């Protein structure tokens, strides 16, 4: 068995799991006024401070949510609504063409239902957003832009985006800049204040915390209209009883992931380089997609095109040998669509369908790569025969 799909979700860190279980045994609504409530509130606020400290945000900038998708929706829709309601009535949304669906579909929805004008920023062959395209867009429409959103690092091909440059451009025009850093935290240095971003998405389960809890880091001076109305628990921007055990475990995981980021990244990068080299030795036609390994790419990400194969077929064959990986894009019906990320990078539909994402995490070892390499050439041969039909 080899789990090579850490970008989908990664096992919880033992210390986060311990914290979760310990907290879950104790009741307490963090909004209650009694002693149990105060104890729960204290745990939440400690987690908030811990996350703020780890990610370069003030505690008041940490808004707990139900995960990455909610944080992205809150940033994209919430900031759009607030800015559209402002005196300038701004209604343009600028997003990269390689966003995760949690951002992309929200942006498209704003275009279809809320009268937003949309601008999709192009990327180069490696999936890196063209900074000049944002400069040109802001020069042309800067007065009308409600927000700019581009991810910190791509979930499929692992390309790290020029966040500081993009954020600086947005700041020049006084436009809030949101970045989905779900894949980045724990793999590359992420500092909210230093990045210049106005909003940043982070989630628990990609960095060793639980699923179903995340945060939006949101500058105090950026208004966001709530998605969820109710008790206003989180700065009146987000309602819902706080998930105390989830938040505590999330805080432990963020702190641990950030503290160990550097050594974790060097270990993963070495393992990833081994994986890439061995895949290319075993299947010489394999094409590594995305940015070249180095600072421009997530250390745990390898993403290959296998010409003549369908990623779907490879996934099935590897799965049958106990190897878990991904074609990069999941779909509710279970039918893989050609990845919009690869299409935006200039791949054709066949190339986009021929790809496989292999991602490493804190439990990965060389043995996982051994298992992959043992199964891969046979799987590629079969998938190629199936692809010819």
């Amino acid at each position: 068995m080899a789990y090579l799909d850490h970008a989908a979700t990664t096992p919880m860190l033992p210390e986060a799991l311990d914290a979760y279980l310990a907290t879950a045994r104790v009741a307490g609504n963090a909004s209650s006024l009694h002693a149990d409530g105060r104890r729960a509130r204290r745990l939440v606020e400690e987690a908030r401070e811990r996350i703020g400290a780890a990610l370069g945000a003030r505690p008041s900038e940490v808004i707990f949510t139900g995960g990455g998708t909610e944080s992205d929706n809150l940033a994209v829709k919430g900031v759009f609504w607030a800015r559209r309601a402002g005196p300038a009535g701004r209604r343009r949304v600028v997003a990269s063409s390689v966003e995760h669906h949690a951002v992309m579909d929200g942006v498209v929805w704003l275009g279809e239902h809320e009268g937003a004008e949309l601008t999709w920023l192009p990327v180069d062959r490696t999936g890196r957003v063209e900074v000049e395209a944002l400069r040109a867009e802001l020069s042309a429409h800067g007065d009308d832009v409600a927000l700019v959103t581009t991810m910190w690092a791509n979930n499929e091909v692992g390309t790290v985006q020029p966040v500081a440059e993009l954020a600086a451009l947005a700041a020049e025009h006084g436009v809030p800049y949101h970045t989905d850093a779900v894949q980045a935290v724990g793999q590359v240095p992420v500092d909210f204040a230093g990045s210049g971003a106005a909003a940043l998405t982070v989630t628990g389960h990609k960095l060793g915390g639980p699923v179903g809890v995340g945060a939006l880091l949101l500058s105090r001076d950026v208004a966001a209209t709530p998605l969820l109305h109710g008790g206003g628990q989180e700065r009146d921007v987000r309602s819902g009883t706080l998930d105390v055990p989830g938040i505590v475990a999330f805080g432990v995981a963020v702190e641990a992931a950030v503290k160990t980021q550097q050594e974790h990244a060097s270990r993963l990068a070495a393992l990833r380089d081994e994986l890439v080299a061995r895949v290319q030795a075993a299947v010489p036609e394999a094409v590594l997609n995305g940015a070249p390994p180095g600072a421009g790419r997530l250390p745990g990400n390898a993403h290959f095109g296998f010409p003549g194969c369908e990623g779907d077929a490879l996934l099935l064959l590897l799965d049958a040998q106990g190897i878990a990986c991904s074609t990069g894009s999941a779909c509710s019906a279970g039918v893989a669509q050609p990845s919009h990320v690869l299409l935006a990078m200039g791949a054709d539909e066949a190339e986009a369908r021929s790809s496989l994402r292999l991602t490493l995490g804190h439990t990965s070892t060389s043995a996982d790569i051994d298992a992959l390499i043992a199964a891969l050439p046979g799987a590629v041969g079969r998938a190629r025969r199936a692809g010819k039909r």
Partner: protein
Amino acid sequence: MSGGVDSAVAAARAVDAGHDVTGVHLALARNPQTYRTGARGCCTLEDSRDARRAADVIGIPFYVWDMADRFHHDVVEDFVAEYAAGRTPNPCVRCNEKIKFAALLDRALALGFDAVVTGHHARLDEAGRLRRSVDPAKDQSYVLAVLTAQQLAHALFPLGDSTKAQVRAEAARRGLAVADKPDSHDICFIADGDTRGFLRQRLGAAPGDIVDATTGAVLGQHDGAYAYTVGQRRGLRLEHPAPDGARRYVLSITPVNNTVTVGPGDALDMSTVYGDRPVWTRADGTVRGEVQLRAHGEATPATVDVSSGQLRAELDQPVRGVAAGQAIVVYQPDPGGDIVLGSATITRAAA
């Protein structure tokens, strides 16, 4: 695994028989309502979920394979073209021939699988011969008879020895939630069951004459000859009754001049049926047997001759309403399940 009870039990039985089984649900429908361009649901998303859940309970891997393009081209377009040509196609036959035991089987074989298991109600005996199911009401050998020996060699039909009631009971015993799911009857790509409306949408209105077979008189108008099937009586909307007061039936459809010809019922009685593209299990020549001319139709004794790629059946008794485009399937009656000798696509019939 369609999401129905039959394929779920078939999969479970294949596992019990010791096979290494993987569940596959075919995504066949293009779904224009879905926001993501080119996104495909399955016949319904719910069917896909039911299939996945059944696979979970059985304990086998499960995948959705996207065959929407192939299905659209080989089954849906073929269906429309056949109606446009004045014939009455059976899309389930075409799907078995071109999708389940061609595109799907080919892909499966290439990936290292040995066979396709389906929940069809039919039997495959040890000699590789296709036979009717023990459940005459559910027998599906008619829509499988188009399969060649090569295709059947890679097919498994684990349900042929059981009635539908037994299959449902077994599903319940196995804890499969689809045990009570209603049978599907309609054409899967025409969700509302309105075939005529579907064809009108695809082919457009094409008004033409409804003509009396005997006198040649124009009796009325239609909106598209493709909407009619030989033997049809209802929906002709003729203003004047026949002089003798007898009911009138569709006798033939002539796409060239977009004419629907009607006449008395006994003009539908056919004694000779011709078919082409036969799939035949034995050497050319003449055999005695029974023929079935439509899905769930009665079998009728006949003498069947197959030679040079053509099939001719002389029926012992005339049969009313033989539609070109349907399959003629030839059976050899047998106590262990009637044996399929072969099939062909009906081209015409004669009194």
